[in-house]
């Protein structure tokens, strides 16, 4: 499977990446290579193989339901670009 320029742009948009128009053919090529590798792997018969959710052969450990974090808003907001009334301010998002 090989990707065209439109698909590369869409992928970049979904990842919120800005890319140069001139670089698109190269991205299309390298991304397509990855998909080809996936195609090759798909050719392997995996009928008897259980899908793997995680490479570690272990189960999730669970945490006790206890509040262990206290308020550190000041510290967190000291490194935020902009805050007001305790809120983080971001460029306007309107649905």
């Amino acid at each position, binding site marked *: 499977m090989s990707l065209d320029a439109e698909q590369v742009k869409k992928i970049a948009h979904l990842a919120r990446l800005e890319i140069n128009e001139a670089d698109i053919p190269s991205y299309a090529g390298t991304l397509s290579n990855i998909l080809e590798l996936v195609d090759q792997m798909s050719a392997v018969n995996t009928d008897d193989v259980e899908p793997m959710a995680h490479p570690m052969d272990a189960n999730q450990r669970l*945490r006790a339901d206890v509040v262990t974090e206290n308020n550190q808003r000041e510290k967190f907001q000291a490194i935020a670009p902009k805050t007001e009334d305790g809120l*983080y*301010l971001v460029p306007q998002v309107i649905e």
Partner: protein
Amino acid sequence: MQWEVVIGLEIHAQLMTNSKIFSGASIAYGAEPNTQACAVDLGLPGVLPVLNTEAVRMAAKFGLAIGANVSRHSVFARKNYFYPDLPKGYQISQMELPIVEAGKLEIELKDGTKKIIGVTRAHLEEDAGKSLHEDYHGMTGIDLNRAGTPLLEIVSEPDMRSAEEAVAYMRKIHSLVQYIGICDGNMAEGSFRCDANVSVRPKGQAEYGTRAELKNINSFKFVEKAINIEVERQIDLIEDGGKVVQETRLYDADKNETRSMRSKEEANDYRYFPDPDLLPVVLDDEYLQAVKDTLPELPDVKRDRFIEQYGLSSVDAGILTVSREAADYFEKVAELSAAAKLAANWMMGEVSASLNKNDLDIKDCPVSAEMLAGMLKRIEDNTISGKIAKEVFEAMWAGDGDADTVIDKKGLKQITDSSAIEALVDQVIANNPVQAAEFKAGKEQLMGFFVGQIMKASQGKANPAQVNQLLKKKLSE
């Protein structure tokens, strides 16, 4: 053309844990912005999620309560999208292997019809933060206190065929999650939210029409209205030669209309994949049995028992078992007063009306079950009439003490001495000779007039049954 409506609901129930699903920050409602958003919730580099044991237990409890398959092996996945109320750039959710699959619920409609609604799945996920679009100099304010609050997303089959069915199903889930103690059901605070997938198709057609998703409808009333108005819109659109597009729509309660929010991103744009930060959650039979042992008597079972044990109608039993607190209150009153039907009538009458009027919950009812039972006993033993009881109830509500104290203090004891009642009857007949003559001439509807006069003369304290009996006797003399 006859149209058929097809509705599926996605309900988000916030789980009543102490801490977040993947971090140790509190989920208490109403805190100052961002004071309950820790490094994990903010998605700072290097943090790792650690799953809350209670969130898992509550999800399993829900699954067992609806007779679903609780997965022995479930997996968390990342749902990727960019929005500032979700700083990581993805929501941790479950995709292919949710914790709960294939359950069902029975709903009952107003006319008594029952219907089974399938629950496709319920999965664990984290809630997002809140965006405030108000005046921040053209910027958006973000509060991440809610980010990471555990959610159980309960997805129904497209089994509902009317807004009424959808509301009945939603109420049923709402009642159930509170019964089993996993969600406080507070819709005003957003603890219980609903999205509705609505489509229409010509009656008899097998395939579904294109659906619109109505977002975040925050009351039962609005769910009904939003669905009805959306159905109307879709039918009008199709009949005018148009086409329904798959999109997310927002219900505007003020204008009673739905409007397009954004076209639904293609499902694969979320690029789900297993979250490498979390291992599969494995539950064994022993664990599930232990959770099952903690389930309380469920609403349907309780309703059937109420019908059997207290001789209530199905409708009454259904109303009394909607909430566990109300059901417990009723049972206590029924037991203490030994007058179950009277207790049921009072619960659905004065008690519920007074609670509604004062916007109170049954657990905050100023008249305790013991007090109500005490009053019902006085109705049963003829100390007071049902009418006077309303006065007693109001006094108890106002904090004037229990029924006996109120009856005593206010001198409300019913007059049951037949000679005293006879005297009142004689007096009223003597004072109204014209009406008495008319009655004797056959104008029997004047009976009500006489009863009214006598009750008034006794300040409501005469025993109504005795009044009726004596009055009939006297007037036919």
